[in-house]
């Protein structure tokens, strides 16, 4: 062929389209080919050449493969906009699918699958059926992928025509390419279906392991990824699998290596023999390191994965820290990841080497990198107690170099913050006393708020040891009104500490100034509240103030950005996927197609969640998963409990109209019998309104699961069958988790059933409402609608007991509680995700007290129940405990008894409850505090139900 394709882009003077049309209809084949190329050139640059559809399709009937391919390319692009014309091409497609040349057969099937026109898909079925059984493996492998394409267009068709079975047969194909594509297609289909379609049995397992050795590198990844969804039955099988997979570690393709590593890590969980595990770790190390010789893009992915692997199995690369030293020419994104891993691998054995490297990085040109390197030194100090002084002295050395202002600022802040964190952890002031003295000398260079706040914390905490603590603090006080809030808060607390430790005249005056500034002169509610609390404490009971403010600090362990263990396990199961690069569970960024069909696009991304999607992969999106079982991922998706309920919007609209009959998948068929038994249920649909059908129902909780307990009574003259149920959008997103199982009801018969329910499916906006609108349908009658009331206590979860630790896991509360005690966590180092425990000096009571007081008063809601009488505290506790409302503490106040309880509703929203009553006398005052006070009315309804005799 002569000339350049680019000539097809040149335009002619007269109308382009008519000219092309003429050429397309030329007698000469070469001219036609050239014309089609021109058309495609126009198409790729975005010109509309759809009007030439018929003419191009006419060129399709040719033996010339090159021309045929071009026409096919055109068809894929325009068939959608010209569905009627596309039908013209169908005959040729069908004919081509029977062509003696396997390339043409495959081409026809491949192209037809890409044409997303309904009319065409019907014609596709027969050729596809044939091609799946073709003699030529190239045709079969193309057909396998085509099944996935068809499934995407018309899933029912694929299931009806038995293509899934044909696809499963291809797993046993003798050609590994075909096996790989069949596996890929099945995995893709599984991704979009909620039914189990692709299950790996021990038979398929061995088939796949055999195919693995022979197929292309890409096929190996498909198979390994599919296999990683299955777990071996026992340790022996796991060892077997691992043995077959280990040779893949030697592959030149990084994707194969990583997928093999993932598979081995998964199976390792089952292997109990430490020898085998150690041996495997040894085998995995060199290939993992070799990934770092690949292109920087691959290195980045490898490093993100290695970061997870070393958190779980630090021994694998414990001796390889040198390979993570930054190269001069590494891209910045690689350098940053290497730093993280160096910190993770740093140990007492190699810390000197590591510090030498960090020190070198800290003098580099890139300021961001310098900053990270300096912070890394600080993190090592916190991580390795024994090396802390060496780390600190490296930081001091760096300050002394005084390179320039930017670097100075970049070093001071991590230094001060590290110091503070170290003091909070180890309480070993003498070790750092000299440094503090140095720092106090250069207080004026502290501009950065966080550094300043940290320094002030140190001064306050060690006020009795720092001779001129009062002078130092006083120097800060002058600029109090101009300081940023975090510095103000810290100043306030430090001054109170100073006063409590040195109750002399100077500090007393200071405290007056500070309290005045922080209450009268400020608009910041946090500051004001804290100041008032101190004020009250100091004025009523200074001893109590000491107990609270100067209480022992919580024990904080550093884990240098360790991920939450449960999140880590999930991410490890997702090694070699995007998840492991973002360090977020897949649900946080992948829209599942199967759920997407029932929700609108907007529902997939709750408000305020954009942050979670940012590529800010560094912090791993790891909020501690406070919930145990019911909502494993929501914790990570929802930044804080406060955002769980949708913001108030328009009142609940009437959505019942479109409930029934539109969405077949959502309606649950009722066909299985259940026997009537159990306590009576409230009647919601009386027989009089239901044309003889009576429905009684109530929400109930059993074994940690929410059920809708239903009773159907048929008082009509006909047999009723085909029961289905549907719930309208409601505040809690309650929906059926499975099919409604009600047998056909003969006249006079009754049936009782427990329908498992799930939460957070279809949440209605607006303030929480207890309204639950239900629609029930059967084959004989019109649709019945009735209303039920959601009782909040069915949501109270079994893990609502606030043990001391879990109590503190309620993070926002915990944080405020600490603040209240005069401690504040240093953000970059400690705020991450700690499960901290208060020291024993703090009784559970004071925790309760602090927590209670820490929630803003606006979150406290009070209601009196004059009709309720508490006979004895014990029975009340028992009764409430049966509904997962747990007793925390009790105290006497005058003649009244005050009982404290806790409960938790899904998504980890805590409820703190205070009941005040005179035992044996009617009248009960109930106060509740929760981050979601709008739930209070529902809560009171629940309490009333629970306590009414």
């Amino acid at each position, binding site marked *: *062929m002569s000339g*350049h*394709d680019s000539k097809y*882009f040149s335009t002619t003077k007269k109308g382009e389209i008519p000219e092309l049309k003429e050429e397309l209809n030329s007698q000469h084949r070469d001219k036609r080919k050239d014309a089609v*190329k021109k058309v495609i050139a126009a198409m790729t640059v975005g010109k509309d050449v759809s009007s030439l559809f018929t003419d191009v399709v006419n060129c399709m009937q040719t033996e010339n493969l090159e021309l045929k*391919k071009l026409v096919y*390319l055109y068809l894929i692009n325009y068939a959608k906009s010209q569905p009627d014309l596309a039908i013209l091409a169908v005959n040729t497609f069908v004919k081509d699918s029977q062509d003696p040349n396997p*390339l043409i057969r495959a081409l026809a099937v491949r192209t037809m*699958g890409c044409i997303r026109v309904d009319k065409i898909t019907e014609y596709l079925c027969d050729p596809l059926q044939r091609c799946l059984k073709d003699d030529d493996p190239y045709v079969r492998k*193309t057909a396998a992928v*085509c099944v*996935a394409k068809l499934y*995407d267009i018309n899933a029912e068709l694929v299931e009806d025509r038995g293509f899934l079975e044909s696809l499963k047969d291809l797993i046993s194909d003798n050609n590994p*390419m075909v096996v790989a*594509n069949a596996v*890929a297609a099945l995995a*893709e289909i599984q*991704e*979009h279906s909620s039914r189990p379609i692709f299950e790996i049995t021990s038979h398929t397992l061995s088939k796949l392991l055999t195919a693995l050795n022979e197929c292309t590198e*890409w096929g190996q*990844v498909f198979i390994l990824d599919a296999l990683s969804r299955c777990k071996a039955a026992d340790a022996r099988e796991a060892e077997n699998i691992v043995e077959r997979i280990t040779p893949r570690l*030697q*592959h*030149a393709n*990084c*994707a194969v290596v990583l997928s093999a590593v993932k598979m081995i890590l998964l199976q390792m969980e089952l292997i109990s023999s430490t020898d085998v595990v150690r041996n495997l770790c040894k085998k995995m190390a*060199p290939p993992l390191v*070799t990934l770092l*010789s690949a*292109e*920087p*893009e*691959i290195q*980045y*992915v*490898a490093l993100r994965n290695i970061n997870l692997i070393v958190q779980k199995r630090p021994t694998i690369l414990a*001796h390889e820290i040198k390979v993570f*030293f930054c*190269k*001069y020419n*590494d891209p910045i*994104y690689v350098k*940053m990841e290497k730093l993280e891993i160096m910190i993770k691998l740093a140990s007492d054995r190699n810390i000197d080497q590591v510090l030498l490297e960090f020190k070198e990085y800290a*003098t580099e*040109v890139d300021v*961001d990198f310098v900053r990270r390197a300096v912070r890394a030194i600080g993190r090592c100090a916190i991580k390795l107690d024994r090396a802390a002084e060496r780390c600190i002295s490296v930081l001091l050395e760096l300050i002394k*170099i*005084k390179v320039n202002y930017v670097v100075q600022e970049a070093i001071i802040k991590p230094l001060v913050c590290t110091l503070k964190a170290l003091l909070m952890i180890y309480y070993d002031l003498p070790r750092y006393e000299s440094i503090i003295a140095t720092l106090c000398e250069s207080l004026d260079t502290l501009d950065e708020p966080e550094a300043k706040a940290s320094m002030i914390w140190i001064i306050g905490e060690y006020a009795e040891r720092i001779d001129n603590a009062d002078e130092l603090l006083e120097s800060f006080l002058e600029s109090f009104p101009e300081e940023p809030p975090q510095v103000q808060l810290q100043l306030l607390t430090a001054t109170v500490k100073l006063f409590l430790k040195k109750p002399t005249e100077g500090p007393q005056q200071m405290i007056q100034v500070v309290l005045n500034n922080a209450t009268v002169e400020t608009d910041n509610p946090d500051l004001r509240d804290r100041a008032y609390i101190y004020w009250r404490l100091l004025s009523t009971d200074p001893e109590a103030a000491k107990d609270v403010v100067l209480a022992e600090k919580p024990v904080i362990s550093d884990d240098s950005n360790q991920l939450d263990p449960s999140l880590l396990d999930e991410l490890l199961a997702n090694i*070699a*996927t*995007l998840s*492991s*690069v973002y360090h977020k569970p897949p649900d946080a*960024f992948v829209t599942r197609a199967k759920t997407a069909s029932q929700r609108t*696009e907007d529902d997939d*991304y709750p408000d*305020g*969640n*954009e942050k979670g999607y940012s*590529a800010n992969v560094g912090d791993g999106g790891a909020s501690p998963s406070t919930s145990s079982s019911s909502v494993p991922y929501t914790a990570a998706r929802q930044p804080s409990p406060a955002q769980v309920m949708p913001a108030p919007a328009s009142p609940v609209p009437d959505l019942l109209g479109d409930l029934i009959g539109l969405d077949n998948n959502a309606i649950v068929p009722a066909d299985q019998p259940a026997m009537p038994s159990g306590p009576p249920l409230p009647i919601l649909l009386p027989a009089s309104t239901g044309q003889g059908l009576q429905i009684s129902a109530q929400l109930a909780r059993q074994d940690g699961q929410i059920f809708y307990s239903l009773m159907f009574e048929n008082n009509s003259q006909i047999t009723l069958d085909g029961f289905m149920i549907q719930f309208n959008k409601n505040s809690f997103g309650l929906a059926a988790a499975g099919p409604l199982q009600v047998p056909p009801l003969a006249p006079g018969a009754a049936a009782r059933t427990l329908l498992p329910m799930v939460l957070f499916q279809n949440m209605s906006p607006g303030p929480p409402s207890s309204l639950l609108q239900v629609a029930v349908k059967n084959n004989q009658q019109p649709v019945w609608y009735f209303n039920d009331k959601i009782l909040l206590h069915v949501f109270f979860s079994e893990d609502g007991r606030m043990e001391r630790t879990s109590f503190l896991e309620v993070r926002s509360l915990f944080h405020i509680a600490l603040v209240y005690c005069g401690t504040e966590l240093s953000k970059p180092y400690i705020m991450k995700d700690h499960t901290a425990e208060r020291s024993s000096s703090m009784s559970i009571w004071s925790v309760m007290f602090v927590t209670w007081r820490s929630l803003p008063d606006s979150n406290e809601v009070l209601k009196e129940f004059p009709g309720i009488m508490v006979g004895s505290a014990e029975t009340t506790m028992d009764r409430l405990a049966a509904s997962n409302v747990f007793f925390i503490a009790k105290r006497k106040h005058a003649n009244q008894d005050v009982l404290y309880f806790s409960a938790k509703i899904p998504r980890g929203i805590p409820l703190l409850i205070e009941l005040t009553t005179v035992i044996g006398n009617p009248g009960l005052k109930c106060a509740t505090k929760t981050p979601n006070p709008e739930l209070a009315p529902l809560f009171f309804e629940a309490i009333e139900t629970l306590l009414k005799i």
Partner: protein
Amino acid sequence: MISQFFVLSQRGDNIVFRDYLYKARLKRLVIVTTDRGEVAKGSAEIFFRKVKFWKEDGQEEAPPVFVGITLLKNNVDGVNYFHVKVVGLLFVATTRVNVSPSLVLELLQRIARVIKDYLGVLSEDSLRKNFVLVYELLDEVIDFGYMQTTSTEVLKSYIFNEPIVVDAARLQPLGPAAIFMQGTKRMPGTAITKSVVANEPGGRKREEIFVDIIEKISVTFSSSGYILTSEIDGTIQMKSYLTGNPEIRLALNEDLSIGRGGESANDCRSSYGSGAVILDDCNFHESVRLDSFDMDRTLALVPPDGEFPVMNYRMTQEFKPPFHINCLIEEAGHLKAEVILKVRAEFPSNITANTVVLEMPLPKYTTRASFELEPGVTGQRTDFKGANKKLEWDLEKFVGGVEHTLRAKLTFSQELHANIIKEAGPVSMTFTIPMYNVSRLQVKYLQIAKKSSSYNPYRWVRYVTQANSYVARI
């Protein structure tokens, strides 16, 4: 799997765009609301803006994998973008599912390689001239977002368009073997930019095979000249133009051993000098059979068409660094300092390194630098980059065993702080040394299964050592 594949030019123009999306996967067009109303924007454009104006996490370079975020009334379009840069072109793939990122990134690299195999040269120009061929290739490489094959050999039987070869002379070549094109000592040049499939003008293809042993070395010297880290990333790269796919046997050093055995890198230091070549780890191309590798260190393979790595290896065994760098910096009076940079080539004198460049960051307030080279030297160039305060020293040729010195007098705009050494350096160096490899890994022989007694194709076995990160701290 992947939803889209596209290639963008440096300016962000779409050169190639292929869409594998379909309904559940990705909406190709995302509506972006602007002040002027609704504008449809392609994901390619969104991607390009993201990459170009990347500023997240304190980094100014986009990582190769990220989530695209388009704010549209709080709506997030969770498209995941993968990209690699190849000779200035951006190869991009998008997806909405939780795929294996290394898989996609490998694929992007491979696509670039396949296209290069076909077109001879990978450039914006060659892509545009061959767009039909490129689309044809893409259709065979990816079906419905799933990788089918990236083997040039396999693809040959399905591809019908012929490449239009662009003039390679002016274009920057691609791939590790491209280094043979640099400098004065040009290797049998046309081979590197020769298309695997296109016929020679004469009609007959020349029977030849190239085996390149390419070693990229990373060395970090401490300020006292002691080696802190050293590493060799090596590849045996092969490009075959042999007809009839004969079997090839490649014999390596017999004393080659794999795996350090010991736990830490320090353990094998003692082995230096014993002559044995110890690889930390290696991997092989899928076409390589290792039946007799354990016995006599021979690799057997039927080379597929196209360029491919036969073997990748990694070494931390100690080796003799090819260059020794000595840097002295001292104050020379008020607002002045002098830098003395000495480099000695530690390899035999019959070998010459080329394109040697030394760089060294100077203190921030350096305003002027005047250079003094050895008297009478040619082919050397010095420069002071005022913008980023860098000293640059280019040496066209560097003969083995020779030492070169550069003196630079610096002038500062302000008083020096305590330690000038901490504000300058480190010295980094790039170079290429043809016909030399530091690992002593060798191809002892290259045997081609003979079809007839007269069959004697050209065999090129070439060695080259290149700097990856070659840094001397001061």
